[in-house]
């Protein structure tokens, strides 16, 4: 199987091939460099004039892309590090996310605006890049009305998710790629010896052709799970490792739920699992407060009431991310942390 990086790179290539309205904008995208994380490698050579390397102006070129999208193109923006999304926050929250709804009141179909914009960005730590190049900041953008947030994982087909987003979204969409995921192998979920998968192919209602699947994963042949573990992106990889070790080393069986749609978040696969287990652990790489896990726990509590017997979040410590390896490893949630948490939650009750 290809790596997630290959899969995303192929998707960008397909998007450029299949729809000539597609353009890519971002810093240092031109070949031979092909972008800081190489997701756009080879594209500027293959599609001259359609991969635009920009000045260091995150707000400015995001704004340009918004204007392009308003006027009928389907731009894709790369923000070199997700940490710098903060610079485009006003363009995203007060411009892109609002226009479609705000302008379209009461208008006939033909006079409505749409804003098909995909903003891709790498997030995450564990590479020693320090406080301004290691964050998981999507939590600051989740819950923005009018903004869709997706996060690929190594399960299924991350490239397809990106391709669908580029070709079919009519709303601005943030596509969050964890850096460590890039080099992970895509897992063929139809051919796993160790795990059993189910897919909930949540087509978001508004976007025909555009699906953000949720994956359910169990250790093959395991007894019914006693805890529901949920995580996205690269944390889903770590969660899966924890899940396997919990089964083999501790005989604790958990069900892993991996959404690719973070906002809006579709809860039914998770809730269905919780009805079975009554125990929830949400794991994320960002800091805990007001993180993705907060919304997951809140919705679970709303839906289940007293049937939610135990709920916890595992997240980064409430600190900036240190550069020093041992400190960084301590601050971010690990496989060990997940195992520990699951054991605590399933043992005492």
């Amino acid at each position, binding site marked *: 199987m290809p790596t997630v990086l290959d899969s995303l790179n192929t998707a960008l290539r397909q998007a450029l091939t299949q729809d000539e309205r597609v*353009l890519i904008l971002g810093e240092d995208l031109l070949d031979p460099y092909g972008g800081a994380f190489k997701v756009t490698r080879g594209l500027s050579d293959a599609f001259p004039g359609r991969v*635009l390397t*920009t*000045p260091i*102006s995150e*707000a*400015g*070129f*995001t*704004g*340009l*892309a*918004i*204007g*392009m*999208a*308003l*006027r*009928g*193109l389907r*731009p894709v923006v790369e923000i070199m590090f997700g940490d710098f999304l903060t610079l485009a926050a*006003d*363009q995203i929250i*007060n*411009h892109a996310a*609002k*226009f479609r*709804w*705000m*302008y*379209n*009141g*009461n*208008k006939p179909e033909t*006079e409505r*605006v749409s804003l098909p914009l995909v903003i891709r960005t790498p997030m995450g730590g564990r590479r020693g890049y320090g406080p301004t190049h290691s964050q998981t900041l999507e939590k600051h953008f989740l819950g923005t009305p009018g903004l869709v947030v997706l996060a690929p994982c190594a399960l299924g087909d991350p490239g397809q998710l990106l391709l669908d987003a580029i070709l079919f979204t009519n709303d601005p969409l943030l596509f969050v790629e964890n850096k460590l995921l890039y080099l992970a192998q895509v897992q063929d979920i139809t051919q796993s010896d160790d795990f059993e998968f189910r897919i909930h192919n949540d087509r978001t209602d508004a976007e025909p052709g555009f699906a953000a699947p949720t994956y359910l994963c169990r250790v093959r042949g395991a007894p019914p799970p006693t805890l529901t573990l949920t995580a996205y992106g690269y944390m889903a990889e770590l969660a899966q490792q924890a899940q396997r070790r919990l089964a083999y080393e501790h005989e604790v069986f958990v069900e892993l739920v991996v959404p690719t749609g973070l906002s809006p978040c579709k809860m039914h696969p998770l809730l269905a699992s919780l009805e079975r287990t009554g125990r929830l652990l949400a794991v994320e790489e960002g800091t805990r407060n007001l993180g993705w896990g907060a919304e997951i726990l809140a919705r679970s509590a709303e839906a289940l009431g007293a049937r939610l017997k135990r709920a916890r979040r595992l997240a980064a410590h409430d600190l900036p991310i240190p550069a020093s390896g041992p400190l960084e490893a301590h601050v971010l949630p690990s496989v060990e942390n997940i195992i520990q948490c699951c054991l605590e939650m399933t043992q005492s009750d």
Partner: protein
Amino acid sequence: MLPQKNLWAMKTMQQIEAELYRAMFRIRRFEETVLDNFPKGVFFGTTHTYLGQEANAVGVLHHMNQDEVVFSNHRCHGHFLAYGGDARALFAELMGKASGVCGGRGGSQHLHWRNFYSNGVQGGIVPIAVGAALAEKRKGARAATVAFLGDGTLGEGVVYEALNLAALWQAPILFVVENNHIAQTTPVELALAGGISARFAAFDIPARELDTSDVMEILPAAGALLEQVRTQSAPRALILHTWRFGPHSKGDDTRPAETIARLRQSRDPLTLHAARLSPAEKEAIEAQVEDEIQRAYQQAFADPYSSIADL
């Protein structure tokens, strides 16, 4: 002024002058009607009127073709009406009516109609305008995009990101800076170091400055720049030194009354331009516009409120 555009070639100067007066007077009476009726509680939120600056929108947007694009700001009524927007729909938008430009969702500052867009965050729409201009360029259209911004908005950094990108990628866009010498209550001297045209020069964008309220000076200057934008597919700037006659929004003018009175005396675009019309023509236009605006207001007033069923 979209509807009249195709007839341009066939028009006499006199006809054009009359049209310009009509367009400016329409804005003037619209805005006065807004301010007069605001205390009655018929409008939601607040408003920023274009009183005193009418020649800018009219002089520039007279040249726009159907396929061309306009980006505006919080002080957008004048731009919208000069673009050809409907007075009733605009009144209705301010009143939160279903018949409003955006069905009441946007209100005074957040308009979209055809190729006209405005938003309430200073400066943020400028890079978006550059992107729109580049999109038209990519489509192969020879369409110019116009972006209006105020002197105060030159405080926002994203404007310079946009100028740099516009120049680097040769976006066919005309930046129109309306320097009305004040931002809310802050005089331009307290907010702006250096010079406005130097800021465009720094990014290699040729700029022309005019210190006038005479639409007949603005008209040809804007026309020439827009032709350059279209034929050379490159950015240009027009810096219009102008004066705001009314409050920033409502009742928030901290300038001395005499200053305003003096400005109204010497720099009123309507008075200046009216001198070119015969009294009879002027009166006829004014009566028609008066009637149009009052009817627009009444119709909007009678229209139903936006309904939550449409949300």
